[in-house]
């Protein structure tokens, strides 16, 4: 029993990170019909900004109530760094191609992604990783058969809080409504007096804040960070967004958790079949197998609308 509960918690933990990153993919797709492949690097840059703050504050020596403050500062720095980089990427790599054929910005996105990950890895770190100082108390909580670390509780709860905040923002604020209007029809939105470029930049910034936040959580949880760290979580989060229905915000959240659970609980369930023994490395195979299956059988995902409506 406790084994399955552990798997469940692990699934929800990775699922939280996928969901946070997936939001940026799905929102940018909503306004621009662009897969922002550089989003994984926006996540990576946020993670490094948070790392910088924690190291500057004393790294593993930080203790007591200071931990909360340092983590808060790290999250703010990560959000700011990710937002700034996403804004620059939009301005330099995507906006000039706004009216180009759709393949052009996609190639530009892949170029930015490769450039940034190599810039950090080869330009600054000589291919070495960095280790997030373990500032979080290592204590665990036991609830019946379930053992869960403080870090996991924080990670899951703060992710949910961020997503609730985002949902409120999109639903109720003026900027949020302008983003929804631009997602539905850019031209009609401009006839309402909405500055379309401003709404697009706001979309990039909000998605980036979520990714930067996820970057810090990732560092705290997995500890090693490097320039190429954005690739796999990025592409998994993209899978999650497709699973939920690209363009749909609830879809990204549900897709993220589904993917996290499929990788962990799903893999262990398969292992229950006699003769099957899939080690942990199989999680990626399962995740991308899932992507292929969705693309074949339900390309619009769980919450997706018929593609013809958008075209």
């Amino acid at each position, binding site marked *: 029993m406790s084994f399955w509960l552990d798997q469940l918690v692990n699934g929800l933990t990775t699922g939280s990170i996928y969901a946070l990153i997936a939001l940026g993919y799905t929102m940018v797709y909503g306004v621009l019909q662009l897969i922002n492949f550089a989003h994984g690097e926006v996540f990576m840059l946020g993670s490094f900004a948070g790392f910088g703050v924690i190291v500057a504050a004393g790294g593993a020596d930080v203790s007591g109530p200071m931990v909360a403050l340092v983590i808060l500062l790290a999250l703010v720095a990560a959000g700011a760094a990710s937002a700034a980089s996403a804004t620059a990427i939009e301005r330099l790599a995507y906006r000039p191609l706004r009216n180009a054929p759709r393949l052009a910005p996609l190639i530009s996105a892949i170029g930015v992604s490769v450039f940034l990950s190599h810039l950090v890895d080869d330009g600054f770190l000589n291919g070495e990783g960095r280790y997030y100082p373990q500032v979080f108390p290592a204590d665990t909580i036991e609830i019946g058969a379930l053992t869960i670390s403080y870090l996991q509780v924080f990670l899951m709860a703060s992710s949910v809080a961020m997503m609730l905040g985002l949902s409120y923002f999109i639903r109720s604020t003026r900027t949020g*409504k*302008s983003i929804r*209007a631009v997602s539905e*029809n850019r031209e*009609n939105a401009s*006839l*309402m007096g909405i500055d*379309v470029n401003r709404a697009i930049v706001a979309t990039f910034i909000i998605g980036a804040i979520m990714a930067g936040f996820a970057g810090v959580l990732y560092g705290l949880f997995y500890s090693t960070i490097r320039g190429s760290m954005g690739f796999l979580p990025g592409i998994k989060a993209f899978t999650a967004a497709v699973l939920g229905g690209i363009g749909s915000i609830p879809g990204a959240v549900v897709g993220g958790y589904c993917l996290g659970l499929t990788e962990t609980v799903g893999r262990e369930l398969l292992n229950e079949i006699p003769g099957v023994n899939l080690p942990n490395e199989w999680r990626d195979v399962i995740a991308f197998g899932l992507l292929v299956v969705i693309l074949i059988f339900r390309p619009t995902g769980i919450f997706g609308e018929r593609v013809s409506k958008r075209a």
Partner: protein
Amino acid sequence: MALLSISGLVAGYGGITAVKGIDLAVEQGEIVTLIGSNGAGKSTTLRAISGLVRPRRGAISFSGQPITSLLPHKIVALGISQVPEGRGIFHRLTVRENLDMGAFQRRDREVGADMERVFALFPRLKERAGQTGGTLSGGEQQMLAIGRAMMARPKLLLLDEPSMGLSPILVETIFETVTNIRAQGTTILLVEQNAAMALEVADRGYVIESGVISLHGTGAELARDDSVRKAYLGEA
């Protein structure tokens, strides 16, 4: 000085020149109609005024200020709103949110009162305030589109075929609304294929054919004109 004045406007898409050098003016307080058959260039003219297509040549000015190369949201800020062809309702937004979008640039405290005014004008919209735009009927969507444009408190309202696809009774309602909106002080440029109704409510009209203005005059003059009667009023 005319409220809106267009001179030598040329506009199109890629290899197509849809509007081939037209002159048009709308005075403060007027209802002016632009009539013409399918593909004549009516929508392109309105799209150029709103900044959705960039004119290739010519000039558009509003209250004496050139607006030819402004972005659409800047043109809305100056006081020009458009109800586009096909209504342009946001299907995933509720009726109320659609109306909010109309008032996007307003920061004053009377937005709520204006929304009540729209609801008073179109009680059907009030009943459906929480429904998404996509669930409305064609007529309701047209009411919403007009109400939404009025939420911006425009000086000039551009209407692109508001009667399209509506039942005769609804068409009557829409044209009555157009007259009422003018009576409240909003100037109107009305694009229509329903020439009979348009010429009835309009002070002046222009006829556009293949991107060129072929005729203009008062509504009554055009309604009496033989070529107009033949081509647009369905008379032999």
